[in-house]
Structures are given as C-alpha cells and as structure tokens.
C-alpha cells in the first residue's frame, strides 16, 4: 500500500557517514541563512579539513559564504601551515589569521615560561578578540562530543555571552533539528557540525572523500623526547630538560595542535586504511594520548571552555 511497506528493507536508510554528512550540511546552511557574519575555524587539522569539505558541499556550486580563521599560536608545525595555505587557496576562501604572537607583542597577554610553557591557553584571548574585531556572530568549530566529557554535554549551537564565556548550566534545550540562532549584539554562537561524529567517522569520511591531509598525520621519522608518557617533537619553542633525552622514532600525529603540547604516537601507518585500523584498535582516547593540556585536571576542558576556548 504505502511506499514504506513496499520499499525493500534498508532502501530508504542512509549509511552512517551519509547521515552525518546530511546533518552537518543542514547545520552549515542553517548558520549561513540565519547569521550575518559567520566564520569557520580552520587549523589545518583533520576535523577542520572535514568541515571545510562539508562547507564546500553545502553551498556548491556557489562559493562558501564565509571566511575561515586560524588562531595561530606561532608554534604550529610547519607542515601544517604549508597545508593550511595551500588548502585555503584551493577552496578560494578568505583566510583570517588571529595571531597569538601579535597579542604577546602588544602586551595583551603574557607568554608563559618554564618547562611546561604552552601558548595553548593564550589562543582563547586571540580568538575572542578576533571574533569581536570582525564582529563574527557565529563560529564553526570542529569539536566532537566523543572527544571529551565536557564536550559530550555541549549543544550543536552553543551560546557564548559578550565575554565569550560558556555557561554549562544555562544551555538552551536543543530539540529535533530546530536550532535557536537568536543572539544580542556582542554575543555569538559556536556551532559544531561534527558534534555527532566519532574519530573513526572523521577518518572514514577523509578516506571516502579522498581528502588531502598534512603529512604529519602519516608515519615519518622524527627527533622526539618523552615527557609524562607523551612523545614531544624537538622544536625551538619548547624548553627541554636535561633529563629529557632526544631520540629518533617512527611516529605520526593523531591530532594536530601546538608543537609544545601535541604528542606524537609511535606508528608505521603510511596509508589511511592502516591509520583507521590503528584507531579502531587503540585503547586510549586521542586527547589522552596526545594532548598534554588536558591532563592538568579532570575538568581542564570544561574550565577552558567556560573561558571561551574552542
């Protein structure tokens, strides 16, 4: 009688990647339709690479109707910076760089010192200032709910007050696919189109779409040293202790962040399917394995998010 009953089983059921893609494209179009000045945060990492591809798809054959922005700590991997510029040029979008170095030079923030010094937390100030300067009312971020427990509770459209702060106790209920996009002047919304994606979904999508990645995601030889169980790359921005000896290792990066706090993992994976097999088998989360910044306390991410972090 009805199509539903005569349809072969599964015919009208989307695969998981198609479902996630359709949802993310819907979210991006909703932002483009309802906000005046959106921006897409683009670091050159795998999640933002997926976001940029989704943005191309959402508005095709039209151009992406918003710029992309990179919050540059000045301590990024050179391979990633090269990739960033190449990919942005290919997509034909405007790139805005919010520079942590400029903030330090202008005396707006103070450079942390010492062995565990990292500019990671300084990104928040640069990000918020750029959002204010450019009067952005929506900023797409690549965060996923599977990454971290504070993120598991965050909305897809996450409200930020005029100070850029997140208040986990005053989040707007989010039902169906009906998103509340209303804000007052000076406030903004962080939008997370990849909320429902897992790390494996991101890799699956990269493989399916044949997306280009910075070379450091694949296995290579590198001079590293070990700190708190994390393999850090030798680089000019980090203060290495005398007890921290350098050695060569075959590694790749599972996440891409600041050189001072992003660790490498031992790996010989040079192809996407090898990386996916590794991730499917791993017993440690990507942030736990590679991010020194999340180890400071159980609520490290929640605290940084409250201040306005990504």
């Amino acid at each position, binding site marked *: 009688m009805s199509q*539903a009953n005569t*349809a072969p*089983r*599964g015919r*009208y*059921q*989307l*695969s*998981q990647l*198609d*479902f*996630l893609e*359709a*949802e993310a*494209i*819907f979210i991006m*179009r*909703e932002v*483009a*339709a309802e906000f005046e000045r959106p921006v897409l945060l683009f670091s050159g990492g795998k999640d933002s690479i997926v976001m940029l591809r989704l943005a*191309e*798809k*959402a*508005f*095709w*054959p*039209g*151009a992406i109707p918003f710029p992309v922005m990179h919050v540059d700590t000045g301590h990024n991997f050179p391979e990633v910076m090269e990739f960033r510029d190449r990919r942005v040029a290919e997509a034909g979008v405007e790139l805005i760089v919010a520079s942590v170095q400029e903030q330090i030079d202008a005396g707006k923030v103070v450079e942390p010192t010492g062995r565990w010094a990292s500019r990671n937390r300084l990104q928040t100030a640069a990000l918020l200032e750029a959002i204010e300067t450019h009067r952005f009312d929506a900023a797409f971020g690549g965060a996923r*709910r*599977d990454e971290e*427990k*504070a993120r*598991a*509770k965050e909305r897809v459209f996450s409200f930020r007050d005029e100070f850029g702060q997140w208040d*986990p*106790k005053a989040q*707007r*209920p*989010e*039902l*169906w*696919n*009906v998103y*509340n996009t*209303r*804000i*007052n002047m000076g406030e903004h919304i962080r939008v997370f189109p990849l*909320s*429902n994606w*897992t790390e*494996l979904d991101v890799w*699956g999508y990269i493989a399916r779409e044949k997306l280009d990645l910075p070379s450091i995601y694949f296995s290579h030889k590198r001079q590293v040293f070990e700190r708190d169980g994390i393999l850090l790359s030798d680089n000019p921005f980090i203060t290495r202790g005398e007890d921290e000896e350098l050695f060569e290792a075959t590694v790749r990066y599972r996440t891409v962040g600041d050189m001072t706090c992003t660790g490498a993992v031992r790996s010989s994976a040079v192809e996407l399917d090898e990386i996916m097999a590794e991730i499917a088998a791993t*017993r*440690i*989360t990507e942030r*736990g*394995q590679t991010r020194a910044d999340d180890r400071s306390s*159980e*609520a490290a991410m*929640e605290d940084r998010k409250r201040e306005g972090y990504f």
Partner: protein
Amino acid sequence: MSTDILRFATAGSVDDGKSTLIGRLLFDSKSIFEDQLDAVERTSRGRGEEQTNLALLTDGLRAEREQGITIDVAYRYFATPRRTFIIADTPGHIQYTRNMVTGASTSDLAIILVDARKGLQEQSRRHAFLTTLLQVPHLVLAVNKMDLVDYSQERFEEIKQEFSAFATKLDVSDLTFIPMSALNGDNVVDRSINMPWYDGPSLLHHLEHVHIASDRNLIDARFPVQYVIRPHRAADPELHDYRGYAGQVAGGVFKRGDEIMHLPSGLTTRVAKILTPDGELDEAFPPMSVTMLLEDEIDISRGDMLCRPNNQPEVSQDIDAMVCWMSESRKLTPRSRLLIKHTTRTAKVMVRDLLYRLDVNTLHRDEDAADLSLNEIGRVSLRSTQPLFADEYKENRLTGGFILIDEGTNATVGAGMIVHAD
C-alpha cells in the same frame, strides 16, 4: 563503514542502574578507553568508593560530579559491526523533564529502566509517557537487577503485565520487555544463562536488529526550503540563472519529474533536478540534504515549503499543540507573546488559550490551570502572525515539532508538538 545509525535515549535514575547499563554497553563494545577508565578509577578511589563508579564516565560537568547526579543530556557513541549508536543519556528526575524531552526528540528508541525489586514507579510511568509524547517509535522496558529477585520469571511477568496495562493508555507502537542484570551482564550483550525461561533477544541484539528504516515518514513529501543557492559567477554562463533550493527532506520521497506544489503560493511545477555535489540523484528521502532545481521560475525563499499538490500540510495561523515548558524564569500564560521556530520558518505567536495542564505522573488533565511553569506540559492554542505549514506531530516529527523562544532573552522556553491545525 556502511552501517546505519540508531539513536536511543535512556531514562532512569542512578538507582535503576542506568549508568551501569551504559557503562557496560560502552565497555563491552570497547568504547571506553583506558585513560577514561583510569580517570574514573582514580576519582572513585579518591571518594572512598569500593567499586569503580561507571556513572562518572557519563557525568561530564564539574557540578554533576560534585553532586553525583546527571543534570544535562550527555551524548555517547559506540558501534558494533552491525550498527552505529548514539545514546542520549537523560536524567530521570522530574525536575529534569525538559532534558529528557530534549533527548527523546531525536531518538529512534527509548530504554526505560525499572528496578525489578521496586517494580513500576511513578517515574517509570512518567518516562513512558514522555517517550510516547515525543513519539519515539520503539520502547524497551528493561527490568533490571533481576539478580536481586533470584531471576524470577514470575516477578518479570508481574511487572510486564502491570506496564502493559498502563501502556494501553499511551500511544506505544512497539514495546519490548527485557529482563536483565546490567551489573552482571545478564541479557545486556549476551543471552543470560540465568534466565532460561526468557526466549527474547539480549538488549544489544535488539538494538542491532530493530527495524527503523520505515519509522521516518516516507509518504508525505515535505521539503522545507532552508537556503537558496545563487552562485553569481559571471565567468560561468551556465550558472547565471542557477537557483537551487537547498534543504533537508523532512518527509516522503521526492523524485525527478515529480509534480510539486510550493507553499505559501500554491503554485505548481516539477522537480527538474535533485542535486548534490557528488552528482545528480533520481530521488531524495529524509534526512538527506539536497538541492532542488525546479522547472518553472517561482519566487521561493527560506521558510517556504515544497510538497505535493494532492498531499499538503495544513497551511494555518492557528495551531493546537502539546507544549513542554522549559523556562526557569517565565511562565506560559494565555496571551503570552513568543517566537515560534517551526521547520525553517520563524514567526511571532500569541498563546490564545491554555486548554489544560497534564499531570505527567497520573495523566490527569487540569482544565483550570492558569499557567505552565518549568517542566510542565499542557495543551495550548497558538495564533501565529504568519501561516505555518503544519503536520500533526504523530505523522511527522520534523514538520510537527517546534520550539518557542522568548523575544526578550532569546532563550528557548518551550517545545511543542502539533496536535491539530486549522
């Protein structure tokens, strides 16, 4: 990677073993990682708890860990070779009704946990009611802690019958009962050897096999126009006249060549092409995000609806709906003025009448109620400044659901489910 996704909500309190159940599903599907488990073990020890408290895995916010309760909906992810799952872990207490409603709104299935010793509680009935109010298509009553009633078939049957009797008052389309012990793993992933009298599936088997493909409305074609794509590329003459209507199919199947009607104009035309960046499609169905090209030029903008000439939603400024009120600071009263966001359309509405307030525990209708406050549910009549393209919520969750927004604070203050439009 070609599995489909099942979204399910879990309702129940910590006492019912909800966190233990989620912990077990995540643990047995290898979705809990060593560093997460280490952190939880450290915290449990620090608090002097004997067992590793798996609830700490799902309580993500500082306030929740401090108070030892789940406040907000947490989303969890796990996969088996057959399916990918998204869990909306919702708090069970009545003061968090809005959070359960939120979690249920996108769920294909809901699991309500009952403690076999205590049987049905007031909150079990409330959870079942909210699940059906939100039209979650599949319901599982998980009778947990069977190990504490000696795996008694009699006890299970008693609870099953009591719940079945209650369920006849509700609109439940698919109900499954599973006796289990989340703590011991009985009937969670594998069939239990302790309950040979039970011949149904384990919970995970049920989650992997429940048929959800026909839950979405594939009959009433609905395409809320979300965004108009006009490339404006002078260099490419082919794109000069391109007008693509982008959106997510909310119901039915659209095929190339179909005769369609545009609302609110009532004009008809045909689907010329259904496009995605990956190529042209013969048909589009929910929840695909596509771009439609039409044969005739019609003035179409965001908030409009494409449907079939012989199958249209109600075009109306007057709707009756069940509303769950979600504001801590403001009440819903007759003559309240609010914003409504329904599909891709936003309009002003006035509350014409509060017909009754529903007691979510007893289902009693209080027709003398003067207002709705936080977490209360009632039937209201709304008058909108613009026509809405409305379906009954039970026919289509996407074209029958809406949110209410306070114009002053911009807060989402209510969720509505259309009962009737005229």
